C-alpha cells in the first residue's frame, strides 16, 4: 500500500470572479511509497508548490482526495495527525523560524503537540543531531548562515518525528555552499533516518540525486520515473522548455551526432567523464 496517495486531485484557488477560476491542479494521480526520495520538477506556476501544500492539509482539494498514511486530508478532526506525519519546509528559512533561540524554535512543534518537557528536550536533541546543528542550540537564528537556518527549519519539522518531509524549493534562496549543506542533510535523513522525502526543486542537479523524479506541467504529471528514465526523455523535456543536467545534454547531443553510442545517458559529471574517456581512448 502506498504511503501517500493522490487520487484524481483537482484544485483551484478561490476567486471573486467565477469566470476566472483556473484549475491549478488537474485530475492529478500520484502515489508515493514509504522511504522514497522523490523529486518534483516543473516550471514556475506548474502547480508543484500547490501540490506540496496538499500533502499536509494546508490546502484542501476542491475535487478528488489526498490520503496520507491512511487518513484523508479532508478529515478535519485529524489535521494535526497529518501535519505531524508529513512536515512541510518552505523556501525562505527566515520566515519559518518562530523563536529567537535555535533550540526553542526546534521545540515549537513538539510543544504544540503537547508533549511533556523531558520528551520535548529529547526530541530537540534528536532533531538537532539529525541535521548536525547540535552545537548551535543556544544561538540566535539571525547569527546563522542561510544553509544553517534552513537546516534549523528542517530540524523544527524533524522534532515532530514525521514519517515524511516535503521540501518546497528549500535551496532556492541559498548560496551554493548552503545548498550543498541542505542537500546532504536531506539525503542523510532519507538514508539514515528512513524518512520519506519529497523534494520540490527546479535544480536538475538536485533532482538527479533522488530515487524518483516526477515532472509536472500545468497541473498534471508529465512524466514519472527514475532519474535515468526521466532525463533520457531529453526531447520531451526540451519541448516543455525544461532543462536536463548539462552532462546529460552533452552526451545526448553527441549520441545524436553518432559520436558516442550509449544506451543510458549520464546524470552527473563523473559518469559523463567516464563515457567520454571511453570514446577518446
Amino acid at each position: 500500500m502506498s504511503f501517500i496517495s493522490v487520487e484524481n486531485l483537482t484544485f483551484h484557488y478561490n476567486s471573486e470572479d467565477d469566470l476566472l477560476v483556473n484549475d491549478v491542479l488537474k485530475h492529478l494521480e500520484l502515489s508515493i511509497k514509504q522511504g522514497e526520495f522523490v523529486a518534483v520538477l516543473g516550471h514556475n506556476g506548474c502547480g508543484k508548490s500547490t501540490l506540496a501544500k496538499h500533502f499536509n492539509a494546508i490546502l484542501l482539494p476542491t475535487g478528488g482526495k489526498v490520503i496520507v498514511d491512511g487518513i484523508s486530508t479532508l478529515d478535519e478532526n485529524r489535521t494535526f495527525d497529518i501535519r505531524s506525519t508529513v512536515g512541510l519546509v518552505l523556501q525562505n528559512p527566515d520566515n519559518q523560524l518562530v523563536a529567537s533561540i535555535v533550540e526553542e524554535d526546534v521545540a515549537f512543534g513538539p510543544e504544540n503537540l503537547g508533549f511533556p518537557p523531558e520528551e520535548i528536550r529529547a526530541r530537540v536533541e534528536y532533531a538537532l543531531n539529525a541535521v548536525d546543528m547540535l552545537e548551535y542550540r543556544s544561538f540566535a537564528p539571525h547569527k546563522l548562515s542561510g544553509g544553517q537556518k534552513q537546516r534549523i527549519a528542517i530540524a523544527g519539522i524533524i522534532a515532530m518525528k514525521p514519517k515524511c518531509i516535503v521540501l518546497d524549493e528549500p535551496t532556492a534562496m541559498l548560496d551554493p555552499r548552503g545548498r550543498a549543506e541542505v542537500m546532504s542533510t536531506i539525503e542523510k535523513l532519507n538514508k539514515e533516518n528512513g524518512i520519506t522525502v519529497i523534494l520540490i526543486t527546479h535544480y536538475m542537479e538536485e533532482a538527479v540525486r533522488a530515487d524518483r523524479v516526477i515532472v509536472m506541467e500545468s497541473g498534471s504529471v508529465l512524466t514519472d520515473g527514475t532519474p535515468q528514465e526521466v532525463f533520457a526523455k531529453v526531447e520531451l523535456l526540451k519541448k516543455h522548455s525544461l532543462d536536463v543536467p548539462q552532462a546529460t545534454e552533452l552526451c545526448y547531443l553527441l549520441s545524436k551526432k553518432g559520436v558516442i553510442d550509449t544506451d543510458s545517458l549520464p546524470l552527473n559529471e563523473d559518469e559523463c567523464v567516464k563515457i567520454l574517456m571511453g570514446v577518446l581512448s
Partner: protein
Amino acid sequence: MRDITFGQYIPSDSVIHRLDPRVKLVLLFAYIISTFCTFNFYALSVPLVFAVLCIFLSKIPFRQYMKSMKAVFAVILITSVLNLFYGHGEVIFEWVFIKITRSALNNSAFIVVRILCLIISSAVLTFTTTPTDLTDAIERLMKPLKVFHINVHSIAMMMTIALRFVPTLLEETDKIMMAQKARGADLESGGVLQRVKALIPILIPLFVSAIQRAMDLAMAMECRCYNGGKGRTRMKVLSIHSRDIMGIVVFIFSLTLLIIFDIFIAHTVR
C-alpha cells in the same frame, strides 16, 4: 543600525542569567519604583550599589552597558540641564540671567543617577534573559488576566514573534536603504519634512515584505501544528530555586535599607 544593543540577549553563564525570569521581571518593576522613592543621597546610593552589583554578577562586559547608555545619553543630558534652572533657595552660581541653586543642582544629579539606574537595571534584564523567557514570564505573570477574557497566550506569542523579527527587519531595512540609494534616493540632505518624505520609499517596501513574511510564518506555524496554544506544553518549565529566593532576599534587604535612609536622614530633594 546594527549597533542597537538595547533589548538584545547576551549569552553567558551567570547567576543573573539563571534567575527565574518572573522573579527578574517583578524585581525590576519594584526596583524602578523604589529608585523613584529616594529622597536623599544615602537612599539613592542603595539602588546604585544594587545596579553595580548586578552588572558585576551578570558577567557581561561593561562596554555593553555603556552602549545601551549611549542610546539615551541625549535624554539624560537634556533632562539634567533643564533641571539645573528649576530651583529655589541658596544661589551658588549666577551669570547674566542664569541662576543655579543648590537644590537645582541636587535635583539634576538625582535625575541623572535615577535614569542611569533605570537603564542599567532594564539592560541587566534584557541582556540576561532570552526574549522567549521574557515573554514566557510575562505570559505566566499575566495569567490571572484570563478572568477578563484576555487571550494572554496570543499576546505573548505576538511579542515573541515581534522580538524574533527585530534583527531580520533591521537587516531588511539596511538592504532597502542601500537599494534605494543605489537608485539615487537622497536620504541625508534637505529639511526635516524632506527627509521624512525620503523615508516613504523605504517604509513601503519594508511593510510589503513584513506582510509577506507574516503570511509565510503563519503557514510555517500551521505546518508545525500550531493551533492557538490549545493543549500546548513548554520545553522550559519555570521553577523557583534557592537562588531566586536569595535574589528576592537581597532585594528586600536593600529596599529596607533604602526606606530606613529615607525616613531617618533629611531629604535633599522634594
